[in-house]
């Protein structure tokens, strides 16, 4: 099943005026793939997901599931399941009844429901007493119940709205892998929303970057990392994101913006360097260190092996290859 969004536009009332949250958004998720929609908060990613789900009605544009226009269809008639950020479990129902709710609403037989619930529970490895209530479960267990509830209906499309945001760090990386595995095993076309670029890189077959209600770039994680389409995408991805600065800062002619990844910069002899800077802060991150250097008011981040990190206050030269440089148009931020 494919999911496509065409020319989706949505505004909300905002203090008497209208605020455009989505602006002519086009995306297409191929059958069986997971697309991660990533962007900062307020970029419209959750609204986009809710439009696909049918919980919001777009002002313009269409939502298609497998080529069929479902823009006017009720959420329950789209063959789409959703995992909510806060799980949205039914608090008064047991785990079993939570998972079975949708099947009961569709008046399936008791035997079918029992069988489907057991299968879904096994699939997400939910090894707990199914008579318990959501309030007695840990965050990770609730998460699995929410996943099982989405899975049990065997939907054509899976929507996940920041499903990891309420989990602690350890559980988050564990669950990330599990959701990915689950998606591969079931082969259900999925749209996954997150603000976390690491999550986007690790989870997505495809990544769609959203900012200010507009799609900045759609591509594989490698494409996005290697060839960011805009300066925003360049800065957003990477740990830390790309350095983007005016060409003049490294002695190049022209008005364009130059982008260099922190891990592509080497420190060396100031004499032959592209540019010189002063070390302000050295942040250790495990085996690596992130060196914050500055030239005038401009900050360059450099990612180095811990042992190569200079001392604070040192004057260093920044070296990088031509091949590692990205150029962006200063007017609109687009790649040139």
């Amino acid at each position: 099943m494919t999911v496509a969004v065409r020319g989706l536009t949505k505004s909300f009332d905002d203090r008497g005026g209208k605020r455009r949250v989505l602006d002519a958004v086009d995306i297409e998720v191929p059958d069986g793939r997971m697309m991660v929609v990533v962007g900062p908060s307020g970029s419209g990613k959750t609204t986009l997901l809710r439009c696909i789900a049918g919980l919001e009605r777009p002002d313009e544009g269409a939502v298609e599931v497998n080529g069929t226009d479902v823009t006017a269809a009720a959420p329950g008639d789209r063959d789409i399941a959703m995992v909510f950020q806060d799980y949205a479990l039914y608090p008064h129902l047991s785990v079993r009844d939570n998972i079975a709710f949708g099947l009961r609403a569709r008046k399936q037989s008791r035997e079918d429901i029992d069988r489907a619930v057991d299968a879904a529970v096994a699939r997400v490895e939910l090894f707990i007493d199914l008579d318990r209530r959501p309030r007695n479960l840990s965050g990770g267990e609730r998460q699995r119940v929410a996943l099982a509830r989405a899975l049990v209906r065997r939907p054509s499309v899976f929507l996940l709205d920041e499903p990891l945001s309420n989990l602690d760090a350890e559980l988050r990386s564990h669950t990330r892998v599990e959701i990915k595995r689950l998606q591969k095993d079931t082969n259900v076309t999925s749209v996954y929303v997150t603000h976390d670029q690491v999550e986007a890189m690790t989870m997505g077959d495809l990544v769609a970057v959203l900012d200010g209600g507009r799609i900045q770039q759609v591509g594989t994680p490698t494409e996005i990392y290697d060839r960011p389409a805009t300066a925003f995408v360049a800065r957003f991805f990477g740990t830390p994101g790309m350095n983007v600065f005016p060409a003049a800062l490294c002695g190049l002619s022209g008005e364009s913006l130059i982008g260099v990844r922190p891990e592509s910069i080497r420190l060396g002899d100031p004499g032959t360097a592209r540019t010189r800077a002063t070390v302000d802060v050295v942040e250790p991150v495990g085996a690596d260190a992130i060196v914050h250097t500055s030239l005038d008011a401009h900050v360059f981040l450099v990612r180095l092996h811990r042992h190569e990190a200079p001392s604070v206050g040192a004057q260093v030269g920044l070296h990088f290859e031509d091949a590692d440089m990205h150029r962006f148009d200063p007017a609109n931020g687009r790649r040139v």
Partner: protein
Amino acid sequence: MRRPALLAAPFLVGVGLLVVVPAVAAAVLAFTEFSGVQPPRFNGLDNLERLLSDTAFWRATGNTLIYVAIAVPLRLAAATFAALALHRRARSSIVARPIVYLPSVVPDAAYALLWLWLLNPLYGPLATVFGASGILTSPWGARIALPLIAVFQIGEAFVVALAVRRSIPADVYEAAAMDGASPWFTTTRLTLPLMAPVLALLALRDLVFSLQVNFVPALLLTDGGPRYATTYLPLYVYRTAFRYFRLGYASTMALSMFVVTALIVYVQYRLFKRWRSAA
């Protein structure tokens, strides 16, 4: 005296003088013969013995139970229905909410007199338009009409039910929408179960309330008739005390009413508790 106690004092003195003292006095008087003219004379369990063989008392008890059995479920259902219909932040519900509440702020006597006019068998609009002149003149007509009149005075329960409905998080409804639940399925499997604990509490409160609130309409609309059909316990107690001046005997009845109320509340409480732990 400490400050909180001082601040609470006016209220506590009022409650003491107007509620506790009369209640204790009534409990004592329940075991006396007292006409209000001569000093009370202790007569042990004579009043209770007379009560058990008093057919008028049993009839009043039966009338009261009929009233409660009709009024409580209907009032609760009406309050819940109104809350579900008007919980949205739409202009129409903002207009309609005070209208639902309004009958509750009308003084009971005025409210009763309004219905006395509406239901008047000779010239009342309901009687003349619908030809329903028997509403207050036949025993069963009156037995059913009086609790029905009370169904419009549900302001407090409505406000509580509205607050509970609005406290249910929206994402649960979105999950149900994704699950393909119909409005009916959502209401019966989601909304009502989630509201149930508070609705149970409202039912308890309304039961206690309904056992007593029938006094004014019974006094002003039907005067306990026709043929004693609406002589409820409060009215019967009132007449025994202040028309026949058998204050001791009236106190016995009041005390037994208190015991019966407490028993019903206790049974209902146990039932809810069992039902909640089973659910």
